């Protein structure tokens, strides 16, 4: 029996030894971040946050090469092509997957009667380390969330109805910081992941409205609009000067566009509380979406060139 009523059935394990890899790196940069301003602070912050991710890099890569049109047939059967980009009447650029998992290549070759060869390249990564880092991070957040006072949480932050005990607050690594310096959010609406808005009165007695809504600029919604969204309304917002990049013809156009925003409906809402999504035998487990994606890519290409 595990905490919170979870039960596990153990299937397979990978056991590792432990090592301290990053303490000196983190302490050096955290000290610098805390005790400097300007470029040093900027640099320290950047390196604190950007190292772990590289350990989680995917092994499969993309590359482009330019080829002559007449050679395209050879490539269609031997490489997994993502995009074909015409350059002129003789040359085309191919955007291709490389370093694909060998098992996938074997499967694709047998299922689709292809002669794919794999192009190998060593990616210096170790996903166990990246996964450990993000797991520790999620674990660190659990005690803050589990008591049910938290109404919204994103990675390293919580919105909670209960003031945190001062023992959790501090300047050191892993401690909490009060984002609003003791001020209390008067009203807030949480309408989905990265969809929320709140208002509070600042020390100068001004009413401040903050909003985060994926797709549109931060703090660009009024509180009234947030309330409307919470009531299920859809709003249309203009996004000025958005880039439209086309890899297919290597061109870019700039245009204004409109985006409609609304609250998420992925979770059931009962009495103002969101009900967790319930799964019975998640069909996504063991389902290799990348392999299927590659398969689709190949089939589309074969169809396009009517093989």
């Amino acid at each position, binding site marked *: 029996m595990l905490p919170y*009523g*979870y039960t596990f059935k*153990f299937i*397979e394990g*990978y*056991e*590792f030894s*432990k090592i301290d890899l990053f303490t000196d*790196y983190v302490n050096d940069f955290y000290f610098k971040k805390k005790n400097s301003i300007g*470029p040093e602070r900027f*640099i320290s912050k950047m*390196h*604190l*946050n*950007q190292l*772990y991710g*590289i350990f989680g890099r995917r*092994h499969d890569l993309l590359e482009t090469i330019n080829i002559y049109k007449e*050679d395209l047939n*050879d490539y269609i059967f*031997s490489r997994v092509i993502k995009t074909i980009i015409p350059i002129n*009447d*003789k*040359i085309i650029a191919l955007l291709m997957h490389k370093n694909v*998992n060998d*098992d996938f290549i074997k499967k694709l070759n047998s299922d689709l009667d292809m002669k794919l*060869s*794999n192009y190998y390249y060593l990616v210096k*990564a170790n996903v166990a*380390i990246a*996964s450990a880092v*993000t*797991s*520790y991070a999620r674990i*660190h957040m659990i005690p803050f*969330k589990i008591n049910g006072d938290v*109404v*919204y949480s*994103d*990675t390293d932050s919580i919105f*909670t109805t209960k003031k945190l005990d001062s023992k959790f607050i501090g300047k050191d*690594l892993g401690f*909490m*910081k009060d*984002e609003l310096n003791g001020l209390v*959010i008067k009203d*807030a*609406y*949480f309408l*989905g992941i990265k969809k929320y808005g709140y208002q509070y009165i600042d020390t100068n007695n001004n009413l401040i409205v903050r909003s985060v809504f994926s797709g549109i600029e931060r703090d660009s919604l009024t509180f009234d609009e947030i309330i409307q969204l919470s009531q299920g309304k859809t709003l249309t917002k203009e996004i000025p000067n958005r880039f439209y*990049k086309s890899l297919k013809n290597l061109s870019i*156009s700039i245009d204004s566009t409109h985006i409609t925003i609304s609250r998420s409906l*992925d979770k059931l809402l009962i009495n103002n509380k969101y009900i*967790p999504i*319930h*799964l*019975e035998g*998640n069909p*996504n487990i063991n389902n290799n*979406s990348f392999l299927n994606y590659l398969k689709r890519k190949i089939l589309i290409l074969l169809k396009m060139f009517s093989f």
Partner: protein
Amino acid sequence: MDLYANKKIKITKDTTTGRNILTMTDKEVINDLKKRNQKMLEGKRFYSTTKDDRYLSYITPLKTTTKKSINQCLGNDKVIIKTSDPLPFISMDIETMEINSEEVPISISIKTFNKTKLFIIDPSKLIGSTKDMAVSDLWNEFFYFILLNYNKHTIFVHNLGAFDGFFIYKALSLRFKPEEISCLIDHDNKFIQITLKLLPDAQKQGIEKFKVIFKDSYRIFPVSLDDLCKILNVPGKTSSYKEEYHNLSLFNNEQLLEEFKIYSLQDAISLFDCLFKLQDMYLQDYNVDICSVLSTSTLSMKIFRSKYLNVDIPILKRLDDSFIRNSYFGGATDHYQMKASNLHYYDVNSLYPFAMIKPMPYELIRKFTISSDFNLSDFFGFLKVEVNCPKDIKIPMLPSEYNGKTIFPTGT
């Protein structure tokens, strides 16, 4: 005399190297390409070089070129680390204009150690059928200048990935042999780097091998150029962007055109000054050259490997990578209540760095299937488990992938 192979392609002898910089129909080129194609089609295999067949290879500490100072040799404590010479780089910026609802490059500005240069399009050719030619001329001018002066330079562009790279890659593809261009692209179709490496010309003796790499400074320092200038205390833009710069009428207004020229140059100058400062800082503090990396992460990794790493970190085999990758989720984000009042808002100081100082998985000790009871308490590693989360739990804690999204569900 300039030759036109077709309306789009112009063949011009490069006066500096004597080679054609547009050689689309050369037999020789086709043969080169065929050879390379053959190699590409056969595939290349990376063979594991480790003595330990559990892993593919290792991430190893980087040896920095340190030189003992005379003081140290004499028993003094003071250690002077010799920093390597900075690698040469230039900065570049492209301005575009909207013509027939497509962005067309109209100026290219560059700043080098001792030069600033602005290439600007011939506006008289910009309208109608000569538009492509006008753009082509602009690029030809630029490439002559680069070929002549900047061999072995890194060319930094702020936002190569999502903007300038599109124009640069197209321009290179139209000018150089296909096998002279190589390019890395990320999974969001953003350009990571574009390399131009001229192949040695068999007929021409004594020509130095030419190579430049276009890199995205935004990928290394992911803030806007304005912000970068502010952070580094470098003079930034002296004037702000005007909507009129984006329109053909720009060329009919002499005063505006002058302003535009100053504006276009300023970006390249600011970028160069910022990077010059940063290159020096990184060489002094970490002995890492910013010209030798691709992104913030690779820069962080290089610093880590050269200053902090003292063991070999295993690189897992693909099979093991796939197994563990199933456990790799990002931060937990979830919403529990719609409307709320009187809230406190907290965040953790450097949550990920805090997580990094905990014990990390190192050597893969064993892989095993679990049939009977298993004691979790002494275990360190990764487990494949079937989870059951009771339906009445209000705040589920374990992530799951569902329809391409990370959710925190109840159930099995």
